[in-house]
């Protein structure tokens, strides 16, 4: 953010924000509904991530471009209409590209509209920053979201179906852990991921510093 006196982030740092420091799934825990609902397989998770990234980048770009024109009182309503427009585009796009994927993701494509990450980014970042910076930040956030989705989707597919991207991993003798692809599995896997991050954070407070320095460099 361009607050006077505070050091401006470089574009690279801005990009890494979403992937590491403020990862929407693991750090901010935002937009959990699609994360848990569509992460039953790696393919679904990746496509959802890409769709969300598209909407995120396009709508934050537009919000950033018109940020000086929109009156403060109606800004949220404006943002929502902008986001809804792009979601409609994505909805029709996916329907045209793959009907199978469209059926698998179901209402969750249209529900991208209410994904807190997008409105959150529009309000917290795009409304205060120039277009280039916003797009870079949105891409980082989108990628971070996709990584989070993939981390969840792949674990659930491996444990729940013994497959990854539809390819069988353990041969015919594998007894799938079905609960993992059912709703409770989503909660458990995400909970375990968060637990893992908590544990790493507490265990190596000193070691966390060099990792971040490395990422930002």
């Amino acid at each position, binding site marked *: 953010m361009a607050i006077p006196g505070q050091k401006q982030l470089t574009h690279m740092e801005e990009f890494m924000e979403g992937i590491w420091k403020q990862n929407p799934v693991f750090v901010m*825990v*935002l937009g*959990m*509904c*699609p994360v*848990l*609902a569509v992460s039953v397989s790696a393919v679904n998770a990746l496509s959802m991530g890409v769709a969300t990234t598209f909407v995120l980048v396009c709508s934050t770009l537009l919000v950033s471009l018109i940020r000086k024109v929109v009156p403060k009182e109606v800004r*949220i*309503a404006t943002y*929502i*209409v902008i986001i*809804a*427009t792009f*979601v*409609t585009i994505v*909805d*029709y796009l996916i329907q045209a590209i793959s009907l199978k994927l469209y059926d698998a993701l179901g*209402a969750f494509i*249209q*529900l991208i*509209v*209410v*994904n*807190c990450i997008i*409105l959150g980014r529009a309000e917290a970042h795009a409304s205060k920053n120039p277009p280039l910076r916003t797009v870079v930040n949105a891409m980082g956030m989108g990628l971070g979201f996709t990584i989070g989705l993939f981390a969840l989707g792949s674990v659930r597919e491996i444990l729940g179906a013994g497959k990854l991207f539809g390819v069988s991993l353990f041969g015919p003798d594998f007894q799938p852990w079905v*609960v993992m692809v*059912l*709703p*409770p*599995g*989503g*909660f*458990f896997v*995400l*909970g*375990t991921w*968060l*637990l893992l991050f*908590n*544990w790493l954070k*507490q265990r190596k407070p000193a070691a966390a510093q060099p990792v971040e320095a490395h990422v930002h460099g």
Partner: protein
Amino acid sequence: MGDISVGQIFLAAVLSNNFVLAMFLGLCPFLGVSGQLKTAAPMGAATTFVMLVASLCAYGLNWLVVHFDLEFLRLISYIVVIASAVQLVEMVLKKYSPALFRALGIYLPLITTNCAVLGVALFQTAREYSFAQSITFAAGAGAGFTLALVLMAGLRERLHLSKVPNVVQGTALSLMLAGMLSLAFMGFAGLGAGE
């Protein structure tokens, strides 16, 4: 889907297809406002009210967009109506119960981005529910949301008094709890109307 009785729809929305625990809708307020019973129940009630309004409006709007062949405007019109309904609830609460208004804080305007509300509108459209079915569905979804929120708040109030290892504190623990609740709700599978 004209043949499903309203009772079945209600049961399914409350229990077997609970919006929060089986369909993953409305998780943000579920994790955010479920700290105390005192705020969980009113939050559920406010959300239920918005759901009913949204469902009513969505039914009318859907007829309009189909009638004028403007289906691509459906999503946009739904979200605008929901945003207005939330604004209405906010104004009423601010006037009549400022204390509650403050307690709900940021989560009240966020009902707009509660996917459960938009979910109600979208699902009733996708399943081509009739008017009575739509309203029942919205009421059931609201009741289910409130039930999940209150159960979770009760559990978390208990947890305040117990010793929890540092590493699982916060969201990780809430998610584990939600997973167990969800597992319990799977016992209702088959009750009411399915997908």
